[in-house]
C-alpha cells in the first residue's frame, strides 16, 4: 500500500474524526488539518499510537487541547498504549478548605465584633449584585484615574529609547541624520533606558464578610486596569477568579456589573490561604506577581488553619516588589491586627492600611505617590 493510498483509504474515517474534534470543541483550522493529512502521508503511521502522536503534534496547540483530543481519538481509533501525562500546573480547584470540610475551628478574633463569624466555607447559590457607581463615586474614580499612573512604582526598562540625555550614544540616529547633512554630524544624539510602571496585581476578597466593600473594590480595580499599563486583578472567596478581562470594558458600571456572571463565589465563604495558594500554584500567575506592586484587599479573616495563608502571603511577599494589605477593619483607629490570620501574615506585609471605599482607596493611592 502506498502512503497516498493509505490516506485515501482511511480518508472518510479521518474526516469524521476531524469533524468530531470540531464538535467536541477543538476547532482545528483547515491549514492545520491539511498539515495533519500531510503528516500521515509523510510519516506513514505504524499503529494507532503513532497516529495518535502525529495528530497530537499537528492538531493541538496546547496541553489543554489534549484533554479534548485524547478521548475523541480513542473513540475513533481505539485505545493507544502511550498517553501524555497531563502535568498539573495548578493545585486542584477542589482542594478542601484548611481544616477540612465541615471543620468549624474556633475563630479567635479579638477585634471586629462578629466579623469573624461571617467567614464561612459555603458558596451561596444566588448571583452577587455589584451595584452601579454613584455620582460621588464617579468623581472619586476620576481623581483616582488621574493619580494612579504617577503613584505606581517604576522600574528601569531594559529597552533603550532615544532621549535628550542618556549614557549611550545613539549611533543609528546620528548616522541617519548625518546622511541628510552630507556626512556632517551636527547633533550628538543619545539613548537611555526609560522608566516604566511596575506591574500591579490586585487580589480582592469578595467573601461574605467583605460584602459591603466588594463593589467599591471592584470599581477601584476598574480604574487600575483602565489607567495602568500592566495590571491584573483576581477575586477570591472560596475560589480564585481572574477578572482582568471583564474589567477592561470602558464603562465602570458595565464592567463591574458583568462580574456578577463571572465571580460565582462572591458573598460566600472565605478560603484566603487556599485561594492564594491556588494563585501561587499556577506558573503563569506567579509571573504576574514577580516584581509587581501587589495589593491584597481583604479583612484577613481566615477560617480554620492559618498556616497556608501565612505561607502563601510570605511567598507573595518574596515574589513582589511591595506587598500592601488593605483592610476595611484597619480604617478604625482602634484596630489591632491580632486575629490569627492577620497576626501571622503581618511580618510579610510591607504596609497594612485601611481602605473601605473609593475615598479611602484614593487616600492610600496618594500615600503611594508620596512614597
Amino acid at each position: 500500500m502506498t502512503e497516498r493510498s493509505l490516506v485515501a483509504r482511511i480518508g472518510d474515517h479521518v474526516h469524521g474524526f476531524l469533524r468530531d474534534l470540531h464538535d467536541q470543541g477543538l476547532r482545528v483550522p483547515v491549514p492545520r488539518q491539511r498539515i495533519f493529512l500531510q503528516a500521515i502521508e509523510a510519516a506513514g503511521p505504524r499503529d494507532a499510537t503513532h497516529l495518535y502522536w502525529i495528530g497530537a503534534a499537528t492538531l493541538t496547540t496546547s496541553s489543554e487541547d489534549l484533554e479534548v483530543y485524547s478521548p475523541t481519538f480513542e473513540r475513533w481509533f481505539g485505545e493507544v498504549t502511550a498517553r501524555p501525562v497531563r502535568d498539573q500546573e495548578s493545585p486542584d480547584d477542589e482542594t478542601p478548605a484548611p481544616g477540612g470540610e465541615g471543620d468549624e475551628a474556633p475563630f479567635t478574633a479579638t477585634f471586629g465584633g462578629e466579623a469573624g463569624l461571617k467567614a464561612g466555607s459555603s458558596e451561596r447559590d444566588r448571583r452577587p449584585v455589584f451595584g452601579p457607581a454613584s455620582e460621588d463615586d464617579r468623581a472619586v474614580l476620576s481623581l483616582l484615574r488621574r493619580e494612579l499612573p504617577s503613584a505606581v512604582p517604576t522600574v528601569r526598562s531594559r529597552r533603550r529609547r532615544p532621549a535628550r540625555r542618556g549614557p549611550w550614544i545613539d549611533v543609528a540616529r546620528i548616522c541617519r541624520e548625518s546622511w541628510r547633512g552630507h556626512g556632517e554630524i551636527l547633533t550628538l544624539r543619545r539613548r537611555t533606558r526609560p522608566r516604566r510602571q511596575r506591574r500591579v496585581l490586585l487580589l480582592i476578597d469578595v467573601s461574605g464578610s467583605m460584602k459591603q466593600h466588594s463593589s467599591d473594590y471592584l470599581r477601584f480595580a476598574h480604574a487600575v486596569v483602565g489607567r495602568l499599563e500592566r495590571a491584573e486583578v483576581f477575586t477570591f472567596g472560596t475560589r480564585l477568579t481572574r477578572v482582568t478581562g471583564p474589567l477592561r470594558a470602558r464603562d465602570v458600571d458595565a464592567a463591574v456589573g458583568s462580574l456578577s456572571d463571572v465571580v460565582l463565589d462572591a458573598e460566600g465563604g472565605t478560603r484566603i490561604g487556599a485561594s492564594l495558594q491556588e494563585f501561587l500554584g499556577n506558573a503563569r500567575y506567579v509571573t504576574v506577581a514577580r516584581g509587581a506592586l501587589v495589593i491584597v484587599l481583604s479583612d484577613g479573616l481566615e477560617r480554620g488553619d492559618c498556616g497556608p495563608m501565612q505561607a502563601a502571603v510570605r511567598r507573595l511577599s518574596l515574589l513582589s516588589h511591595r506587598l500592601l494589605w488593605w483592610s476595611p477593619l484597619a480604617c478604625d483607629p482602634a484596630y489591632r491586627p491580632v486575629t490569627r490570620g492577620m497576626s501571622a501574615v503581618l511580618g510579610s506585609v510591607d504596609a497594612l492600611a485601611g481602605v473601605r471605599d473609593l475615598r479611602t482607596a484614593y487616600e492610600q493611592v496618594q500615600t503611594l505617590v508620596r512614597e
Partner: protein
Amino acid sequence: MPADQDVLDRRLAAEGYLADEGLLTAVHLAGVLGLPLLLEGEPGVGKTEVANVLARVLDRELIRLQCYEGLDASQALYEWDYPKQLLSLRAAEVEGRGVGDLYREEFLLQRPLLRSLRAASGAVLLIDEIDRADSEFEAFLLEFLGDFQITIPEIGTIRAASAPFVILTSNRTRELHDALKRRCLYHWIPFPDAERERAIIRAQAPGLDERSAARLVTAVHRIRGLALLKRPGIAESVSWARGVQALAREGSSWLEAMRRSAGLLVKHEEDLALVGRHAAEVFRD
C-alpha cells in the same frame, strides 16, 4: 533529517537523549514537513536540550536566540553597522570618491534569525523561552516562521537556501498568539515515566547501577507527588544523581547521601522543609 523515525530515535539515544514516542514523532514530523516545532513543558524537562542534541545529530550549527522582555528586531534579526558606515563615508570624503551604497552587504550585522537563514547547510535555530518576549515580537516572527524569509527594506527579501530546523520553547508563563501556534507543530513534554527517567539518569550519570537509579527515581517521583512550590525536572534529578554518587564515593551511605544532597533536587527553602518532613516515606527503599 533521518527518513525513518527509528533511525532518529537511535541517533538521539546515541547522543544521550532518550525521547518518548510523542516527542520523537513531533521532531520527526517537524523535520519531514519543514515546520517549526513549539515545545512546552515545565522547566527542566529537556526542551532546550532537544535543540542541542538535534544540532549534533543533524551535524548542523546551533543558533540560539534567548528571548527576554524588550527583545527587538535589531537584536534578533539584523542591524546596520552604523560606525562602519560612518567611517566609510568619511574615508570616501577624504579620498574624494563617491561613497556608493551605504546599505550593502558589508555593512549588515547578522543576528540569529538572519544567520539561521543564511547558514549554507541549514541550521538548528533555537528560539528559547518565547513566552518571555513581548507579544509584539511574536507578530514579528510570523513572516519568518511561515515562509522562512525575512524582508530587509534596503536589500529586499532574503529566503533560506536551506530551511533551518526551528525549535521554539515556552514555559507557559503567558499565552502565546494563535497565529504563532498555527505555524508550528506542537508537543507538550511531560515528566517522564519511571522507566524512562531511570534510563535518562543512567545515561547522564555513568557508573550508576540499576538498583541505585531505581531508588533515586522512586524518591524523585514521591517528591514530585508532594505539594511543592516547584516540582523538580529531569535536569534536577540528573544533577541529584551525580551529587549522590559523589557523596557515596566519599563514604556516605546511599540513603544518607540522598538526604544530604536533596538541595540539588528541590530549590526552595519551603520545599526542602516539606521533603524533610516526609523524609521517612520519601527516602525509604
